[in-house]
């Protein structure tokens, strides 16, 4: 069988109440699957069901050749390791001790570590770049260090699948990147299958081989990130009514200022973005143009304004675009020149500034 983790019509929930049904996942070995979706959508419930922390309600889950219900606790422990959101505070316990707990399914009745166990502990610490933390007390760690040690603990369990529930929560951006890099390496080099939930959609897009969008009672979408990008908007998934999320760049824009435009921004080539965001902060509705369709300014402008004059990429701006922009400009009280250089293709923008001067509309230079 090609798929290592597979669910068929899986329904999950608590106490027999179904929260999400018809979850169908097919995941090959060594791939990374990320669950995204709004808070409370049931990402954790799905992960807990896959790891048998809670009982599944309907359907089947296969990990490897067998259904998970048929694994004994010990066999299951050798298949699947977890990194949970539970805040653990063991007292007077070194990081090496915490990591060594991962050997639990392998050690004897008294938990005695063999030289091979110790080597595995060491190797796991090395993989998360935390060898220097081995003897440090676990309770003294920072969030980033803690998460790496918990990941080492999971690696130490020598599982085929690692399941992580929001492993990047509480981490700053540097530690997020570090952690995801380690996961990517584990998947590639050790062929470990990774299933996790993330809040950072941009990171999820970049690290995952598959995305599972959880929303409402069923799965909103499942597939490679590129396909999801085509078919589903993040605004739908998260019910974003104001504001927006640009999947291509992974950038968030806040709520668009409403109303008739008061300021016209002459922009292009990325010069306008700072102006747009500054105007959004002051909640001033604005119009902008003329922008080529492939301009970065255009991506942001569309999220923040309803009045964007766009001309086709790779062609000179035409008189028609000028007319359209001029009409908007004349409604505005002020004009901002973002400082975009004028060349052969965007000469119409120079004409716009000229028009403003003629009509005695005050012109500010970008940023002010």
């Amino acid at each position, binding site marked *: 069988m090609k798929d290592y983790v597979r669910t068929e019509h899986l329904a999950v929930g608590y106490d027999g109440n179904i929260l999400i049904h018809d979850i169908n996942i097919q995941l090959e070995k060594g791939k990374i699957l990320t669950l995204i979706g709004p808070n409370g959508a049931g990402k954790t419930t799905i992960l807990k069901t896959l*790891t*048998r*922390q809670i009982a599944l309600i309907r359907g089947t889950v296969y990990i490897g050749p067998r259904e998970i219900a048929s694994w*004994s*606790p*010990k066999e*299951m*422990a050798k298949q*699947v*390791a*977890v990194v*949970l959101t*539970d805040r*653990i505070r*063991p*007292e*007077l*316990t*070194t990081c*090496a*001790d*915490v990591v060594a*707990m*991962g050997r*639990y*399914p392998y*050690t004897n*009745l*008294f*938990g005695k*570590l063999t030289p091979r166990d*110790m080597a595995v502990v*060491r190797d796991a*610490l090395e993989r998360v770049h935390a*060898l220097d933390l*081995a*003897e440090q007390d676990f*309770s003294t760690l920072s969030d980033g260090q803690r998460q790496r040690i918990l990941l080492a*603990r999971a690696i130490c*369990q020598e599982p085929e699948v690692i399941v992580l529930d929001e492993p990047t929560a509480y981490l700053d951006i540097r530690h997020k990147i570090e952690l995801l890099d380690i996961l990517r390496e584990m998947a590639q080099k050790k062929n470990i299958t990774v299933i996790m939930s993330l809040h950072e959609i941009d990171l999820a897009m970049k690290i995952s081989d598959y995305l599972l969008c959880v929303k409402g009672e069923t799965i909103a979408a499942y597939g490679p990130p590129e396909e999801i990008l085509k078919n589903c908007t993040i605004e739908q998934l998260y019910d974003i009514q104001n504001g927006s999320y640009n999947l291509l760049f992974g950038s968030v824009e806040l709520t668009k200022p409403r109303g008739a435009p008061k300021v016209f921004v002459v922009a292009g080539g990325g010069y306008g973005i700072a102006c747009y965001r500054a105007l959004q902060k002051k909640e001033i509705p604005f119009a902008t143009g003329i922008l080529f369709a492939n301009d970065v300014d255009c991506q942001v402008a569309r999220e923040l304004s309803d009045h964007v004059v766009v001309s086709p990429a790779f062609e000179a701006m035409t008189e028609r675009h000028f007319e359209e922009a001029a009409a908007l400009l004349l409604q505005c009280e002020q004009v901002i020149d973002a400082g975009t250089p004028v060349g052969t293709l965007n000469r119409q923008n120079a004409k716009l500034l000229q028009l403003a001067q003629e009509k005695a509309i005050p012109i500010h230079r970008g940023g002010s």
Partner: protein
Amino acid sequence: MKQNSQGMEPKQSENIPLGQMGRFAVVMLFLSGMLLVALLMNVNIGSVSIAVGDVFRILWDGIRYGIANAVTKGGFAQELGAVITSSTESQILFRIRIPRMLLAAILGGALSVSGYLLQVFFRNPIAGPFVLGISSGAKMIVGITLIFLARRMEHISSFTLIAAAFIGSLLITAVVLLFAQKVRNMSMLLVVGIMVGYICGAVTDFCVTFADDHDVVNLTNWSMGTFSGANWEHVKTAALLCIPGMVGALLLSKPIAAYALGEGYALSLGLRIKPFRVVLILLSSLFSSCVTALAGPVSFVGIAVPHMTRTLLKSSKPAFVIPAAFLCGAVFCTFCDLIARTVFAPTELAIGTVTSVFGAPVVIYMMVKRRRTLEH
């Protein structure tokens, strides 16, 4: 240069388990030494002071008597037996002091392990059989048993008392667990435990008040908490229950370590949580009911001693903490008993009075320190 940067690191990490092991050995040696000193002092000091040399001579006689009696049952054994019974000092030693100190040592150890297991169960270092009301529950059932059985039976065996205490412990544990499901807050749970403890105390007092004086005679002393009633039967019973109990506790040391990481992690490591928790409670109740049945209420040992043990070991590895806590509890209780019976002699203090004086400050210190780390 090259040696410094590359040669050092692997060595250090290989030393991790060894270093802890070394500390464990040192602590165990230290505690064993302390126990030996405590035992000797207990035998030596009292209303009749027996010189250390005599103690050893009498002990030697006793050992020879035991061996001779077992091997030959002949004249030599009888001769030795006569020597022992004829001397007041050896009478005091064998009838009173030795069983008393052995009982104090065994029950002290049992009580601290009982507290430790409860702390594991509730994942809270301030849990213990006394604060959670479990000891009081055991005391209540034992008290009732004593009052009602004393009329019908001449002699109540220590097993009966322990069985009564065990039922009482489990009963109150069940009540506390019921509340534990409702209140997630640990300090609230402790308040519940203390309140349940008071209720049990009130019921016990009620029974005592309305019982015949005759029935209560052997109750008053016991209800204060003391090792003064110790005899060889008690020692045997305690050893018979506590030694297998300790073996059981040691066998739990691996799952306890996993459980300390939280239920989620323990589960994913392959621990069967429910049976584990049941065994934990049964063992803890077994230990604490031995203590309550044979010595009455002894406060704070269950919290203070495991904490002192962890501090000494600088580790909370269960495989280290469990045996060390047993030894430490034995040392703590034998010293406390020594103080209880000698400081204001001939008046004897209740054992709980002494253990509270030493134990309660430790608990207060823990709570203050814990608050600080939580705020941190």
